[in-house]
């Protein structure tokens, strides 16, 4: 590798990393946070079998899972302005990622809710608790534990999906790399570099997931 390339890599590393810290990570965390809220609500509506709303939830999951994330991004950022709704790039990206990942996570949450032994609901009724008290204190915490690995999966996958926000002008890591590459034409080196930074982020997340699972196992152990 020539000295020039090494110099370019060294210069760009901090720039790309900063884009990661300033944009990719907040974008991921915000989107995941909203996706989590959406998924819990959508999963509970289905679990509790709330008529009408349940069909709406199935429709939402069907639409979102059946269309590409890229199309959803383009529709919100480039499409909506033509009907008068103009969103800045970052909020548009958060909106799309939350709604998109929320649909997948809702299915994980629903499966986890259904895996909680139902008898506990009846036991809760029999000691006088209400449906929502039992959900909040007994069923949901157990479902979260079951869903934790697949929610972690979603988060890691979302970190990488945020690279698509580059297509709607969000200056996250890929966009930063593209800008640098436009000046120096070192695609191989630069895209290896940005790939490496993504790997770094995801390694940290995998490590955190391990800690989280250990913590969750402290109470209860195997069932």
């Amino acid at each position: 590798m020539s000295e020039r390339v090494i110099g370019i890599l060294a210069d760009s590393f901090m720039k790309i990393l900063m884009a990661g810290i300033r944009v990719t990570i907040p974008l991921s965390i915000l989107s995941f946070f909203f996706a989590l809220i959406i998924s819990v609500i959508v999963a509970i509506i289905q679990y509790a079998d709330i008529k009408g709303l349940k069909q709406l939830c199935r429709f939402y999951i069907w639409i979102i899972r059946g269309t590409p994330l890229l199309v959803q991004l383009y529709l919100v950022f480039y499409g909506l302005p033509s009907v008068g709704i103009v969103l800045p790039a970052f909020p548009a990206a958060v909106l799309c990622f939350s709604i998109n990942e929320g649909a997948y996570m809702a299915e994980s949450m629903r499966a986890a809710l259904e895996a909680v032994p139902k008898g506990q609901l009846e036991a809760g009724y029999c000691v006088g608790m209400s449906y929502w008290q039992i959900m909040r204190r007994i069923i949901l915490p157990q479902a979260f534990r079951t869903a934790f690995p697949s929610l972690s999966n979603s988060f890691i996958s979302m970190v990488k999906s945020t690279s698509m926000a580059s297509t709607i002008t969000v200056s996250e890591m890929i966009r930063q790399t593209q800008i640098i590459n436009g000046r120096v034409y070192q695609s191989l080196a630069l895209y290896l570099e940005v790939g490496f930074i993504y790997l770094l982020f995801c390694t940290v997340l995998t490590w955190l997931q391990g800690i989280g699972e250990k913590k969750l196992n402290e109470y209860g152990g195997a069932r």
Partner: protein
Amino acid sequence: MIEVKNVNKTFNGFEALQDVSLKVEKGDVVAILGPSGSGKTTLLRCINFLERADSGTLDFDGEVYDMHSISKKDISRIRRKTAFVFQNYNLFLNRTVIQNVTEGLIIARKMPKEQAEQIAIRALEKVGMADRLNSYPSQLSGGQQQRVAIARALAVDPEIIYFDEPTSALDPELIGEVLNVMRDLANEGMTMLVVTHEMNFARNVSSKVIFMENGKVIESADSKSFFENPKEERTRSFIQSIMSARD
């Protein structure tokens, strides 16, 4: 104390309960016997509204409720005076032993935590589980879990406890510890309605026996005359087959 009249329940055309009536007086220990599929468990679940009966009335402490159209409010009022012990214990898996017992007191009855814990410890002492306060259900044997479930039932100071085959899911050597707890409760005068396959319990502990088959009450009598002097032919053959299986 409670009187159930003419309960009917159909599952997809299958008549699980047909005109079932029974009466439990204060201090009674009533055993409901019968072959599998006879409707015993369904009856118990209908009485505590875990299952909604198609028709029937429940007289609880002199107040009469329609078992089909009873309101949610009345259901929770009745449930405040009752407790239920399940075949599969149904402990809250994300709660420790003591939390399993205090949960209903603190959350449903808005009792201060300290008071609830005192009550819980007393109930757990009664079932011999006070040394495992901070264990999780998954760390306990089936018999221990069922004893915690009984403590959870006792803690709410119920007027009656319903037991749904409380020993059926247990290993044979663990059945004794649960039955002993139930025997102690009976001796203290607790009112109990027990669906069971334990003939010894029905014979020696319970004061009354109700024998069911095909969703109907075949015979209802005090324990002594039920076992020594059964009136119905079907009851006789049931007792005989159980007793001979034992020898």
